[in-house]
């Protein structure tokens, strides 16, 4: 866990101020990952966005060209015509109209969709599904580390640098998502509006924790450090912010942290609320509002990362899909196949990648769900391989254990 790695970095930072000024005492063992190459100035950023609750992939990127789609999705099906027309991405797939920014990124070849994708999990529990998605293991269990953390840990070490934040994963939100938990160091940040405790009080407390409770010492040090780094004039949530607004706000803060030269290169965050059992809505409605928030968050990353966007990949993934046929309450129940989205200047985009299984009754998984034809791990492996330079062997053994049979998807980045 985050605590362990930091306990080993014993230091005697006497005050919070010292922690904030780049943490000289922390920097001793920090190395810039090798993927940051001084030669061509490439310095990649990776953001993982987990959509908790199971995103309806068929409603997000609709297979308009599939003759069975409209009948299955019924009144909430998207249409390429009319007042809220879905945006055709190719001759077969259309994007939800609430995602104009993502549509633009696809047009500019900086975003891609992978369809009919799923983790190896085949049951329908959110919490187990999220465990599998985030742990990177083939099945649910009591795993306490996530694939992104293990990827971070496996990065080849390069030149020594000052500042531990460069090599830490950034957890955005009040708790660290499982995908980023593990032995590699993480730091966390969440927007909040409270008067700050005095630096001196914090320093005394950290000193007490060092003697009595090292895990709390590490946690508090990181919390203090990151909060300061993320503070800007407009980072506090304002009254009246709606949910889509909150998603954008979170992304804006994360982008600000990550755009700094000494900021974290790798981040994870989770958005809740995608469990659209009832009244999911079509081109407008509940899912549309959520997608609009996600779209805005992607745009915030693009804007906030500035120059760094061209070296960025954002991976958007969810634990499983939803039933192909809408249920009795104009929503969808837990399913299997869904979409994964990639966005960022480093993405080799402009396309929907799918080995389309079709939506005929016999083609549906267990007669009800979009059948998965692509393993999500293949997609993520492709990104980690091309973007961060992780070897196929590390990916198959450490990052996604026992996944040698899942081939790295080629050509997603660059």
């Amino acid at each position: 866990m985050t605590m362990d790695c930091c306990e080993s970095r014993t230091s005697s930072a006497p005050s919070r101020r010292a922690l904030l000024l780049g943490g000289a005492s922390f920097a001793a063992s920090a190395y810039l990952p090798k993927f940051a190459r001084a030669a061509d100035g490439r310095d990649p950023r990776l953001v993982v966005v987990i959509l908790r609750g199971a995103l309806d992939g068929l409603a997000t990127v609709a297979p308009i060209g599939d003759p069975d789609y409209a009948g299955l999705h019924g009144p909430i099906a998207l249409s390429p015509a009319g007042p809220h027309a879905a945006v055709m991405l190719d001759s077969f797939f259309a994007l939800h109209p609430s995602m104009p920014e993502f549509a633009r990124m696809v047009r500019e070849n900086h975003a891609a969709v992978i369809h009919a994708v799923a983790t190896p999990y085949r049951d329908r529990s959110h919490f187990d599904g999220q465990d599998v998605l985030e742990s990177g293991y083939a099945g649910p269990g009591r795993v306490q580390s996530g694939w992104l953390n293990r990827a971070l840990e496996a990065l080849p070490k390069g030149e020594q640098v000052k500042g531990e934040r460069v090599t830490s994963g950034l957890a955005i939100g009040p708790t660290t998502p499982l995908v980023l938990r593990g032995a590699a160091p993480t730091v966390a940040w969440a927007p909040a509006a409270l008067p700050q405790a005095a630096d001196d009080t914090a320093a005394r407390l950290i000193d007490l924790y060092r003697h009595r409770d090292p895990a709390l010492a590490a946690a508090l040090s990181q919390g203090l450090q990151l909060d300061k780094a993320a503070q800007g004039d407009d980072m506090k949530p304002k009254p009246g912010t709606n949910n889509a607004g909150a998603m954008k706000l979170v992304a804006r803060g994360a982008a600000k942290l990550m755009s700094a030269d000494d900021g974290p290169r790798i981040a994870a965050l989770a958005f809740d609320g995608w469990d659209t059992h009832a009244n999911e809505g079509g081109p407008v409605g509940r899912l549309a509002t959520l997608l609009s928030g996600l779209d805005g968050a992607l745009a915030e990353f693009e804007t906030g990362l500035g120059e760094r966007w061209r070296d960025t990949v954002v991976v958007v993934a969810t634990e499983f899909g939803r039933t192909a046929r809408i249920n009795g309450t104009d929503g969808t129940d837990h399913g299997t196949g869904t979409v994964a989205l990639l966005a960022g200047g480093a993405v080799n985009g402009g396309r929907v990648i799918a080995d389309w299984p079709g939506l005929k009754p016999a083609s549906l998984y267990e007669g009800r769900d979009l059948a998965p034809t692509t393993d999500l791990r293949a997609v993520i492996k492709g990104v980690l391989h091309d973007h961060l330079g992780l070897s196929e062997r590390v990916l198959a053994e450490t990052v996604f254990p026992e996944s040698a049979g899942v081939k790295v998807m080629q050509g997603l980045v660059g």
Partner: protein
Amino acid sequence: MAGDSQAALVALNRFGLGARGGASGDFVNAASDPRGFVKAELDRPNSGLLEVPGLQSTPALAQAMFAYQDEIKRFRDSLAKGPPAISPMDSTPSWDMDASNPAMTVQPDAPKQQAVNPPGSLNVIQRTFDAEALARIQRAVIADCGFTERLVVFWSNHFCISANKGEPARMWAGSFEREAIRPYVLGRFGDMLKAVEQHPAMLFFLDNQQSLGPESRAGEIRKRGLNENLAREIMELHTLGVGGGYSQDDVTSLARIITGWTYAGRQGQLGTPGTFAFNANAHQPGAQRLLGKTYENTGVAQGEAALADLARHPSTATFIAAKFARHFVADDPPPALVARLRDVFDKSDGDLRALASALLDSDEAWQTPMTKMRSPYEFLVAIGRLLGRAPEDPSRTLGGLNLLGQPLWSPAGPNGFPDSNAAWAAPEGMKLRLDISARVASRIGENVDPRDLLEMVAADAASTETRRTIERAESRQQALALLLMSPEFQRR
């Protein structure tokens, strides 16, 4: 200090809500008889109930909510017809962002703030939520040991709803807990299960009022059908647990079995508005097979029989025992303790008093090191107890809970709030706890002696370092903030 200080700390913090300050004598009493101190609450009849003047039943609250919604509608209609005589004051308190929506947890189901309300009208839904929250917090702050309240919080989180689902959920969040959880925390699990699944708040939260038997009369006429949401969570989260031996077919079967389980709406066609109702027109006809057993269509009794069997299922005993031990003792509780709790649950037919007693009677529960973090709720309540401040307004506590990621009655999903150190000892959470402690200390730190407070919190069980840190603080305020953040106050 006479008695066992370490055991007193366990009694007060692991099982209770922390020592009360002032002249309570909690620490001394707990040290002289740690088990007895905790168990005293179990012997008090109905100690789980919360009966406070002004708190109303779910049907009464339903009526008030419908009246309020009607009033809003009338006012809007009148606005549409012409300019208002008086410009509408913004009387809606800012709770919608400050108190009810955590800054960070994105809650797409959150009710939208009313754009335009009648002049001076009070939002009865938020007033009710605040009154229920206040009653709960006050009870927690003044409770003797607080073990019963801890049981309430545990079971309420096990069977959670989210107030962010919509107006009825916010209106009924408190009454749900008072009516479906509290009466049973020392009663039978099966009774609590039935009360929960038939409560309007749960039926609304997990959409069952919308689920229709596809071949029922209503299903055929309205061309709508099943919604599996409640049925799935009953098995996955409320009883058997994931991996508890059920299949997708079982989920669908249970969903069919409980079609028709709804609550009477504002028209009252199915009964008094806001009461549980069985709508035979929506109920799927025919027998259903669930977990290998056939349940004949006996109307509402079909579902009640299924629930009774689920409550008695061996997987349920296993699931509940592990979760209970994990909550009170450790993220990885001693297996022998879990096994004993499972047997007690099983053999007593889900007697929750027996379960709680078995926990308190075990040696493991007293000897396992105090590694768990207090949850945000336990932390904030413990502050109120130590400082002898039962709030008269819940907003500060509610705001604190939002910041710390545990907004009252509003978890992000039906699995409730997390219950692990990974969740609560996170960097951002620790920083926010410090900010809150500093703010509390800056408000009242001057009027207390932190050295006295340390005696009330931990006495001889306090570490030398904690004692020294508090004694050496540069101000009383700083010392109080450090005490509230000390491992002795944070861990349980």
